[in-house]
């Protein structure tokens, strides 16, 4: 099958290289195979697991009805995980959007050392999650935390805060790490949105006499709403489905108070060996994510302006 240039094709036979419809199918085939084979099928497999009693010791899929589901729904740890997942993500996203908008507004302006500041701001996100979590593990250490050291040095506190040892502080720590990690990504996305605002409109705003806050509230935020939604969606998915931060920082402790659906599924399924329950727990992620996506996308559809 030659893709070369021919000056005059005397035999106007349609080769494969020209058959748009076949080419389209051919081009899409590998992606479709991947998605079906390694996403759709495992998804259904997870569903099957959740109705079975499969464990690492007993790999055969025997149907047991709703037993696993009943066990989960009556487990307090499960409900802690469920609500934690939602709360952690919700609070994180609010913080992320606010901080990212402020940072984006700053970073689109020209100033000396902009490249360096951008580099620093991006660091949290370009680092692998697990490694960043490891750094924070020490930063929040119950004895040697540098944060505590600084606070003690200033005289704000007497003894350590036990960030990872007290439930509320532990939850705050998890949220803080998520925010710290995702703000760079959100900032970059919102920056792109701000830069897409035509310069004519910026000039018109200046001539019309709007100050900083009016411009931010009435022009910048509405016009970047679609792209902010993209940032929120990405950020939400990343936070929602993440188990790494919890796994490394607290392992779900203290006393399961910071457990989230993903981490609980891991502990139950892989470390605990109960694959069926693990699969069932993890399955709750899908409807929640779907709901969040629909809400966000619908909000954007209504505001489509450009």
């Amino acid at each position, binding site marked *: 099958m030659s893709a070369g240039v021919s000056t005059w094709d005397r035999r106007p036979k349609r080769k494969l290289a020209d058959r748009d419809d076949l080419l389209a199918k051919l081009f899409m085939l590998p992606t479709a195979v991947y998605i079906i084979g390694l996403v759709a099928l495992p998804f259904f497999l997870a569903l099957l*697991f959740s109705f079975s009693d499969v464990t690492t010791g007993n790999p055969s899929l025997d149907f047991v009805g709703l037993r696993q589901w009943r066990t989960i729904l009556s487990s307090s740890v499960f409900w802690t995980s469920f609500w934690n997942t939602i709360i952690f993500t919700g609070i994180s996203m609010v913080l992320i959007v606010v901080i990212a908008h402020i940072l984006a507004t700053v970073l689109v302006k020209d100033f000396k050392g902009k490249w360096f500041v951008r580099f620093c701001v991006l660091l949290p996100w370009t680092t692998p999650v697990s490694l960043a979590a*490891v750094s924070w593990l020490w930063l929040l250490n119950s004895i040697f935390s540098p944060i505590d050291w600084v606070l003690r040095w200033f005289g704000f506190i007497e003894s350590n805060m036990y960030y990872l040892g007290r439930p509320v502080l532990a939850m705050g720590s998890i949220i803080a790490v998520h925010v710290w990690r995702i703000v760079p990504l959100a900032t970059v996305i919102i920056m792109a949105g701000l*830069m897409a605002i035509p310069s004519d409109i910026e000039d018109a705003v200046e001539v019309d006499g709007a100050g900083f806050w009016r411009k931010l509230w009435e022009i910048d935020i509405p016009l970047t709403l679609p792209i902010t939604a993209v940032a929120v969606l990405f950020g939400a998915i990343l936070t929602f489905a993440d188990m790494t931060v919890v796994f490394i920082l607290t392992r779900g402790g203290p006393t399961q108070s910071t457990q989230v659906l993903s981490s609980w599924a891991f502990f139950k399924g892989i470390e605990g060996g109960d694959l069926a329950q693990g699969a069932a727990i993890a399955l709750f992620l899908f409807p929640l994510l779907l709901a969040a*996506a629909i809400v966000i996308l619908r909000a954007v559809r209504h505001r489509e302006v450009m």
Partner: protein
Amino acid sequence: MTVDAGKFSGGMVDLTNKDEVDRRRRQRRRRARGGRAVLYGTALAAALAGAGPFVWSTITSFKANPDLYTKANNPFIFNLPPTLDHWRLLFYESEFLTFAWNTLWVGIVVVAITLVIGLPAAYALARLDMKWSGPLGIAIFFVYLIPPTLLFIPLTRVVGNFGLLNNTWSMVLVYPTITIPVSVWLLTGYLKGIPKDIEEQAMVDGYSRLGAFLHIVVPLTFPGIVAVIVFAFTLSAHEFIYALAFVSSTAEKTISVGVPTELIRGDVFYWQSLQAAVVIVALPIALVFNVLLQRFIAGFTMGAVKG
């Protein structure tokens, strides 16, 4: 109509009043300077918040044990002379280099697979208008909503059936499920931004559709491809749960899993070496990312706007 400039900042100045004009001019200069101060202040705070932990990590990685494990010691300076011991431990006594090598080659292969599979798919979605293009695009989006933390349990079984359990190749097989949807989305948006005329010109000049794709479209998509390479490699290097679930022996681990699991032996944390690992991995990736940031944003914006 003149509005009292003193009351409203948006007001016009009575231009026949020289004092008012001068006052307004000075007000603007003061505001500009104040604005600059806030700008630099925020930028500085942001830079500190982002880079602070890494600066501290670097210092820590050179700290001697007695220095580090004394609660009262200032964590930001060297109370005892710095030492290379922990770096030596990282490179010579731990399997860090193995992890690094694994992460690198897995990343490269995954990126290659992503491009080879994703670019044609994006082209099909962007250009070759098929009836199923729309639904398929939505289907790809739905893949996002089925995260790795949902699939890792059944996939462990699937990987086992392929005989790849405890093998680095398991990650090569599975990671594209994460990288391909994003890449297709990015590239589709980018491709839609390329004018059709150029391809049609190529086809008039004698290329087949396939030829036009290979010789004309692919080179033109270069910035988008760069964005995909960066993004996909990052996703691959960051991935944790699949790596944790599929692989248990040291030689097959990547950095993402190897560092937290191997440098923590029971209750003993090799903190300084851990921080060293963080710094070594974070800085190069961040550098590359920054250099390519413009390209990345361009590719991303196209994707976000058109997609």
